[in-house]
């Protein structure tokens, strides 16, 4: 009997967080679960409460609602939401130092092209996409109609689309091809927007604008929170309520791995039918020649290694820019600069030091035997330094992972009836968190650290991970022969590099790991930590490069110098 009075008041109880109100005899509201009486009384149901921002309420019941308050919710499409999110992400990148032209000159046209290709905008016959209504909630669908997760919910915005198309016609719009019915299904799937696609789009845009941000850098920024991704929907304008079936699109609880974003980017590039990218020549920081300098510095390896890395690249024939630039005609696989560069460095180390748990120590011993000045690069001391720093950094990363908070401040709920218990859970979690924060006097979550390109800091400063070995000389491990330098190490080993014929086999690394030399495994771990990828991923890349090296020769013959100018290898089988 008092239900109609209390149905509009959906505040959770202060004491027990339940939403179950009754009205006592005096006309006061009380909580049915814990009998907590509050000040609110029946007569004073002030509707102005409903619109204040810190209470959960439903705004508007239909298009005829007119309110005088500032908050006014609108109907919007999923792609509009994603557009906002992309804009926020681009702004964050600009703040981090990406050049300003990136946002308007590269990302924006790419986004419009995507909308056009997926026929969500800039087209004469738009496909239906997820819509969010003004009430913030889809009307409850009868069981005969679409299933809950179908993304083909009726859009109520034919008018929306035409207005947005009219507003933002750009010189990029090409006439859309009349899609044939066979390709319609596949295209629609490719055109479905997800949060992961935003990252893929940004990665493609960064590669186009030749910024020195690789995919692993981008993912690291996302993980540290410098680029909005998890709970990005919180930054949408207040008028755009994220609730209902379509809200699933915006809910993320994982940051995707390098591999999955790469696959997404690859698919995107083909879907968008992009032309050849601007070439990535040897002077561009994304090119492995320059990128390797950065990774060598980060791994505390001597700068003297850099010419050897470049020599290796040339030897394999990958110095040329065409291997590192996407081109639909010539090289239709999106290049992975970061993983490739790391693989090159590892292989160079393998050439110079052997890395079979024996040769490298022998070579180092010989090198440092006669060294009085301490200038020679000592692999042993390098290993100790880097191993301790790596272990420390890995445990710090684990601690940060344990402390990270994933839940948004404004929880998303998919059905109207879920709102109560979702809010209740949030309140309970908050209270427990507050209690323990007070007890431990340390707030939950991670303290923000400043973004950095490097994983380690080598030098003599107070906060450094250890002394820098960049200026050490490699002369000790090389021998002079006429006018050329050769590595003293004369042997090279590799795992089976033939392509595995099984389709579902992603990597043999887990089974091989225990039999590989520990030094090699350590290098893999180091670089996979720096790039935040799985060691098996990097291992496969190393094998791919080795395949390229040995493919140019037939098996079983002695490998001599390629030509007199590059004195790199002197491998005796």
């Amino acid at each position: 009997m008092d239900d109609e009075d209390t149905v509009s008041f959906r505040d959770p109880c202060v004491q027990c967080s339940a939403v179950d109100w009754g009205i006592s005899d005096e006309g006061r509201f009380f909580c049915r679960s814990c009998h907590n009486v509050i000040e609110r009384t029946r007569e004073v149901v002030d509707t102005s409460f409903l619109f204040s921002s810190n209470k959960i309420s439903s705004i508007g019941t239909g298009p005829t609602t007119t309110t005088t308050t500032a908050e006014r919710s609108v109907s919007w499409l999923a792609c509009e939401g994603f557009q906002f999110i992309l804009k926020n992400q681009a702004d964050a990148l600009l703040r981090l130092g990406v050049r300003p032209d990136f946002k308007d000159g590269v990302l924006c046209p790419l986004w419009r092209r995507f909308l056009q290709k997926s026929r969500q905008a800039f087209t004469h016959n738009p496909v239906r996409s997820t819509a969010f209504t003004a009430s913030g909630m889809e009307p409850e669908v009868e069981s005969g109609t679409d299933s809950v997760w179908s993304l083909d919910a009726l859009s109520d915005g034919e008018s929306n689309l035409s207005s947005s198309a009219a507003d933002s016609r750009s010189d990029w719009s090409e006439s859309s091809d009349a899609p044939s019915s066979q390709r319609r299904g596949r295209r629609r799937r490719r055109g479905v927007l997800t949060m992961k696609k935003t990252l893929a789009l940004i990665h493609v845009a960064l590669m186009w604008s030749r910024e020195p941000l690789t995919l692993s850098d981008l993912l690291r920024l996302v993980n540290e929170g410098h680029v909005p991704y998890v709970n990005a929907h919180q930054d949408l304008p207040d008028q755009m309520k994220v609730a209902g079936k379509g809200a699933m699109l915006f809910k993320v609880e994982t940051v995707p791995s390098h591999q999955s974003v790469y696959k997404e980017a690859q698919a995107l590039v083909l879907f968008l039918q992009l032309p050849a990218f601007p070439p990535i020549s040897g002077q561009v920081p994304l090119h492995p020649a320059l990128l390797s300098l950065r990774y060598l510095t980060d791994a505390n390896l001597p700068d003297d290694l850099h010419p050897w890395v470049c020599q290796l690249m040339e030897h394999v024939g990958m110095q040329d820019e065409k291997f590192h630039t996407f081109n639909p005609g010539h090289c239709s696989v999106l290049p992975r600069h970061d993983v490739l560069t790391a693989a090159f460095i590892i292989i160079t180390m393998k050439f110079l030091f052997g890395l079979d748990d024996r040769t490298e120590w022998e070579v180092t011993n010989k090198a440092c035997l006669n060294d009085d000045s301490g200038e020679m690069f000592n692999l042993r001391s390098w290993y100790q330094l880097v191993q301790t720093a790596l272990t420390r950094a890995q445990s710090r990363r684990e601690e940060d992972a344990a402390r990270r908070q994933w839940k948004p401040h404004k929880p998303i709920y998919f059905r109207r009836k879920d709102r109560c218990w979702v809010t209740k859970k949030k309140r309970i979690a908050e209270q427990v968190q507050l209690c323990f924060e007070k007890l431990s006097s340390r707030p939950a979550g991670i303290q923000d650290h400043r973004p950095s390109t490097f994983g380690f800091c080598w030098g003599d400063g107070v906060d450094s991970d250890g002394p820098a070995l960049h200026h050490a000389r490699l002369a000790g491990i090389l021998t002079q022969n006429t006018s050329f330098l050769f590595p003293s190490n004369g042997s090279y080993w590799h795992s089976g590099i033939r392509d595995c014929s099984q389709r579902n086999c992603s990597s043999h690394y887990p089974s091989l790991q225990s039999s590989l030399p520990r030094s090699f495994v350590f290098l893999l771990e180091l670089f996979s930590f720096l790039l935040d990828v799985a060691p098996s991923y990097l291992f496969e890349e190393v094998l791919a490069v080795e395949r390229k090296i040995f493919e140019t020769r037939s098996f079983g013959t002695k490998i001599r110098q390629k030509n007199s100018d590059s004195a790199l290898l002197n491998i005796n089988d």
Partner: protein
Amino acid sequence: MDDFDPGLIPICDLEKDEDDEVSDGGSSKGSCKLRLPWVKPKPAEQHKLQHGFQHSTSICLEQIREAMLHHRWEEAAEYMACYAQIIEDQDTTHASQYKEVVWRMATEILHHHPKSTIEDYNSIYERMKYSGVKHYLMICLEHSFHLLLHGWTEDAKQQLTAAESWRHGKESAGQLHRLKLIQAYRSLLDYITWCDKKSTRSNNSNWESDENVIMHNYFRQASVNLKEILKNPGVWDPFILCYVKMLEFYEDQEEALKVLNEYAYDDNFPPNPNAHVYLYQHLKRYNASEKKLMKVLKGLHAFVPSHELMLEYSSLLLQSAKEKHTHTALGVLLDMLDFSCWRNNLDVWTRLKAVIQELQKEADWEAVVAEKMVTRKDWWWSALHFTRFHLSKDAEENPELLKIKASLTKILCPDLPLKYSAEGQNQ
């Protein structure tokens, strides 16, 4: 890696050590003083989903567990603050599991953390109580225990009263079970209040005075509930003691006796030796006849032959001066001595000696003894009491015992050649 100092070692020191030795990463060829830290690669499968809510919460849980195991309570509290987000997870399959984990861990941390206050406890209990329905009753119970232990009896009672009237959905068997428990403890709290009132009232006051009336009210409340509870089969030891105490105070012996008899002899109740003990103690307090006492103790003997009340039982039997009873007494004492806890007890042996002496007045006492000893005639009983080791030990610690035991060896084990004798100790 344990003996390796993670600090920086200057390069020159390393080279001095490694001058003329060929050493690999870790093998010890020659005397390699320096050991390089081993590479400990992470297993390859671990890298699957490194950045996600599930991963974060599972690592957080591990960290809390480690911190708790090593008693680093401040650290545990820090991680607990970060772990609270698991409650918000909308996946309902494991929701109640997570809530239970949070409840139990949070209370454990509060128990040990130096800065925890009663408000923290109250806050956590209240939150977790209303977080779900599965654990509501148990959390209520635990909360009220906690309040009781810290002296907040009224609050504890309030909690239990609120819990008692709580119902949710279909009443499951588990729910009914827990509700009974809650009812029982509420009556216990009534009893505690009653005790308080009893001790604080002035002795000269009128029976009908105000404070006494309050006291009587509590008694009534408690007794009604307890009577209800005690009808259910179960082990209700602390409750029955309270009830009987209250009844004795109000001099309602009949009721007390009835309740105790039912508790001890009702077949629906699980076998409980304590029931017989309580009954016996009550009867003794009210000077019941020996026959009754013996009957109760006979029941107890069937349950627990090694109970200490068996000493009293044997004394009673001996006092009755009947032949049959003397035989029973012998059996009882020998049963006691089957257990090694009575091995060195002087009382038992003294009584045994008295019984034997009494027995020896009969004609065929040897047959009786032999009959009782038939199951013990294998070497195990004598090995329990009469070996040379026992001889030396008893000679050192307890010479009186030695005397009594020595006198009984020949009687109890006539056939076996035992070294246990007063003269034997000189060997």
